[in-house]
């Protein structure tokens, strides 16, 4: 892995996970009126930790730098969606709480854009270094 790869590696994983979470939250909001639909979400901190350590869902640890990523290099591949604990489940078995989902959706979008901002900063400082300060 080159230095430039390493510079963007972490933020790239964050972006992939945020994008994945956005899709899950989107399907929660879309299915707010579907009978028996259970709201899903991921444990973001755990997923990011797993992606960073290169562990897949099977829990295989990399004990040698020569080992390949079990998840095929994708940060999302090993992440398991979990069902949200229902606070007020409705009578048709649906556990989507629209207010919670919408606030989470906005929050996740903001976090995604914040990550983009960080990447932009890194690109700018890398370009500055490449140009020798000119």
């Amino acid at each position, binding site marked *: 892995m080159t230095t430039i790869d390493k510079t963007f590696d972490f933020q790239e994983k964050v*972006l*992939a996970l945020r*994008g*994945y979470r*956005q*899709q*899950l939250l*989107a*399907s929660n*909001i*879309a*299915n*707010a*009126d*579907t*009978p028996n*639909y259970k709201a*899903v979400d*991921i444990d973001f901190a755990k997923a990011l930790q797993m992606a960073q350590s290169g562990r897949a869902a099977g829990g295989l640890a990399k004990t040698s730098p020569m080992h390949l990523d079990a998840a095929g290099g994708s940060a*999302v591949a090993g992440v398991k*969606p979990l069902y949200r604990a229902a606070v007020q489940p409705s009578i048709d078995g649906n556990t989507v709480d*629209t207010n919670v989902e*919408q606030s989470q*959706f*906005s929050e996740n*979008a903001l976090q*995604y*854009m914040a990550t*983009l901002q960080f*990447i*932009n900063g890194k*690109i700018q400082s890398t370009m500055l270094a490449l140009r020798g300060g000119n």
Partner: protein
Amino acid sequence: MSLFNVFDIAGSAMTAQSMRLNVVASNMANADSVTGSDGQPYRAKQVVFQAKPLSAAMPKGASGVVVARVVNDPSPMKMVYDPKSPYANEQGYITMPNVNVVEEMTNMISASRSYQANVEMMNTAKSMIQRTLALGQ
């Protein structure tokens, strides 16, 4: 890009909600239809939503919405006493549609709110994608 799936999900939900709105409109319009093309009084219709992964490319856990089927409302028909009507039975009662107008109104508000939520979701996804495309500029 994975975020494009959000458009598919929101789009499927909007289609489903507008179908629900259509059914509500049909029910409201036919709340007093004593007879239809089959000679029977109108029966209220309801849509049944189903969560479904829209494509193979969709990651696990993410699913859109489809209308599985449109069912007839099983609630009993309204009987109204009107002996002058040509549709009255021997006792002088006519069978009126089982449309509950109050229920249909709340159904309509719920559908339009859900539709709005999905439009909002699409707007957010759009600005996220635009910001991603503008990376490094």
